[in-house]
């Protein structure tokens, strides 16, 4: 292990543990453990949501997708960023005003049904697992590149998966939402700074975005398969070769739309992101937080796309001066596209640059893992244990149930990540991390988003409709993306690989049809006043203003 690797890992651990100790929960209450006391401010929450959302798929995966597919890879970034607009328009403020512990809890109470709550828990767990595994894969990839050694006879990849998941699991289990919020906020800032540093360095060293795209588009786009480069097929104009700067290297016309819709609608159903809205003090604060998030993730993804392009442009010319690149490349093209940003960091910042980017990648994976584990804890600990297994549980017992489920979910994700080897999947999935995250978005957007949106905006939504839509959307999404693995490249395969474009409308229709045939809950009118009224917001704002006034008065004395 090099000195840089040791310093990097020590810095990551120090930051994460330091923030956790400083912000450790003061009380053993479930509101404090799951919701940070519902007092997270707009700026802090927007940073924390970004830290939660910008995962290894965003940091390593988007740049990797652009690196390997050119313009078509940018659609991942567009879809990820687009997701917060539907959240802002349709979900954020009413969801917070209704105020619960988790997405499953919201649906269960709004539709007045424990069966809805349990069905939602199942879907939420499926989404969390699909999302957790690629984050652990990202941790393994980064460790492999940064350290290159395993411990106790394990491979470097396995060691990375186990260590990154274990550290964050312990921190989440004992730090709760309060510690996780501050960790995610600090981690987002570090992640963003790493990307900005990389962008400044490559630009100052002569990289010109437009010229690079132009140069890369002069020849056909080719990527490694085994020890040779193979030209990519052009899915829009098959008679022409695929090029970096034009659409077609990865998706046909339907595929672009299907991917963006899948990612765009999926965000509103992501439990770890939506749960963060319950920590806002008011609905209006939740809405303003989303505006901040939209601006911040837009800047982040614009930089990630640019750096994916920079890696494609710079690395082939750097092999001669950096012999260590020969092992990682085939004719100057990286074997594992997720290595694009760490390699750029090493080219321009030597071991320290690699350390910085690798630390950011580890942080990206860890901050998202933290959010996912907490969402998992909320669903098992609160929605299952407190509601069904032990309704008389004390606050202490409920918090311990959450902690225990955090550790179990982490162990399951690490085991699955170890079972998958990214290199084995690269020919079929240009960016394994980004592809697996697409599955999580597909289930979330097909099963959860339709029922969440209709529960907020359609008074007639019923429990039976919600369950039918959720199960239909979820089952259809899973069947479609699994089916896509066995299909030859075609427009139909593209639709199946990103299934929300079809599965979500089907789920919407099923919810509406079944709801119209069943009795709406009596509590719908009361729910409306709560979700779409602002009395609670005004009361909270008034209370906050009085608290500030009181503090000033005390200081003046």
């Amino acid at each position, binding site marked *: 292990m090099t000195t840089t690797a040791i310093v990097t890992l020590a810095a990551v651990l120090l930051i994460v543990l330091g923030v956790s100790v400083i912000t450790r929960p003061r009380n053993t209450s479930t509101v404090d453990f799951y919701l940070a006391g519902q007092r997270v401010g707009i700026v802090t929450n927007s940073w924390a949501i970004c830290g939660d959302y910008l995962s290894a798929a965003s940091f390593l995966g988007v740049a990797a997708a652009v690196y390997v597919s050119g313009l078509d890879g940018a659609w991942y970034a567009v879809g990820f960023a687009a997701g917060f*607009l539907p959240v802002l328009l349709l979900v954020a403020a009413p969801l917070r005003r209704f105020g619960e512990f988790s997405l499953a809890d919201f649906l269960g109470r709004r539709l007045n049904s424990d069966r809805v709550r349990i069905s939602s828990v199942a879907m939420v767990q499926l989404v969390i697992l699909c999302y957790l595994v690629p984050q652990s894969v990202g941790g393994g990839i980064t460790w492999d590149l940064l350290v290159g050694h395993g411990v106790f006879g394990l491979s470097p990849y396995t060691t990375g998966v186990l260590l990154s998941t274990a550290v964050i699991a312990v921190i989440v289990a004992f730090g709760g939402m309060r510690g996780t919020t501050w960790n995610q906020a600090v981690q987002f800032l570090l992640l963003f700074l790493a990307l900005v540093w990389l962008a400044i360095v490559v630009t100052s060293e002569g990289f010109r*975005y437009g010229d690079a795209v132009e140069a890369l588009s002069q020849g056909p786009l080719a990527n490694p398969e085994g020890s040779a480069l193979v030209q990519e097929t052009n899915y829009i104009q098959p008679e022409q070769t695929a090029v970096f700067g034009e659409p077609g290297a990865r998706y046909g016309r339907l595929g672009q739309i299907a991917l963006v819709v899948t990612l765009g609608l999926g965000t509103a159903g992501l439990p770890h992101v939506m749960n963060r809205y319950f920590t806002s003090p008011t609905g*209006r604060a939740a809405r303003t937080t989303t505006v901040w998030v*939209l601006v911040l993730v837009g800047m982040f993804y614009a930089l990630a*796309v640019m750096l994916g392009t920079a890696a494609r442009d710079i690395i082939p010319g750097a092999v001669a001066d950096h012999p260590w690149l020969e092992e990682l490349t085939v004719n100057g093209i990286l074997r594992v596209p997720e290595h694009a940003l760490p390699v750029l960091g090493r080219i321009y910042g030597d071991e320290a640059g690699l350390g910085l980017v690798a630390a950011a990648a580890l942080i990206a994976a860890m901050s998202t893992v933290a959010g996912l584990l907490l969402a998992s804890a909320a669903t098992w600990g609160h929605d299952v244990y407190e509601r069904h297994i032990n309704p008389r549980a004390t606050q202490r017992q409920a918090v311990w149930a959450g902690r225990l489920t955090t550790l179990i979910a982490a162990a399951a994700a690490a085991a699955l990540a170890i079972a998958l080897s990214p290199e084995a999947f690269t020919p079929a999935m240009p960016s394994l991390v980004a592809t697996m995250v697409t599955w999580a978005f597909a289930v979330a957007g097909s099963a959860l988003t339709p029922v969440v949106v209709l529960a907020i905006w359609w008074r007639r939504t019923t429990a039976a409709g919600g369950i039918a839509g959720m199960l239909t959307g979820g089952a259809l999404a899973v069947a479609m993306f699994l089916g896509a693995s066995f299909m030859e490249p075609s427009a139909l395969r593209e639709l199946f690989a990103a299934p929300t474009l079809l599965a979500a409308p089907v789920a919407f229709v099923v919810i509406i049809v079944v709801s119209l045939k069943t009795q709406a809950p009596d509590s719908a*009118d009361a729910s409306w*006043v709560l979700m779409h*009224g602002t*009395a609670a917001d005004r009361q909270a704002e008034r209370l906050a203003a009085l608290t500030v006034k009181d503090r000033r008065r005390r200081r003046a004395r």
Partner: protein
Amino acid sequence: MQSEADPHFNEVQDTPAEVDATFRTLRRIAITYFVVFLVVLAAFPVLTITLDWWTESRLIGNLSPAFLFAGVGLYVVFAVMGIAAATLSSSVESRMLGHQRQGEATASESWADTSQQKPDGS
């Protein structure tokens, strides 16, 4: 007795009618912006099919309109739409809610009280 330090002091409750009117206005805003959002997203493949200029010409920084749109432009559009929609929605809520006289609050207070109950009645 209520004092100024009590957050419930002079607190104006929302009536179901007010909330319903606000909900309808907000729904119109959300649907309008959502449709614009879909049109913006759908514009990319449509322009790719119909307009050679979209992928072949060069604009700022020598980037094609297609690359500029996917690499930078869309994020700017999302942010502008988000700021506009949030400002409009919050302004609608401020104008339409919270102006009812104290004596008229009884009905909505009783609804709000009911809605605070958990499904198990706790």
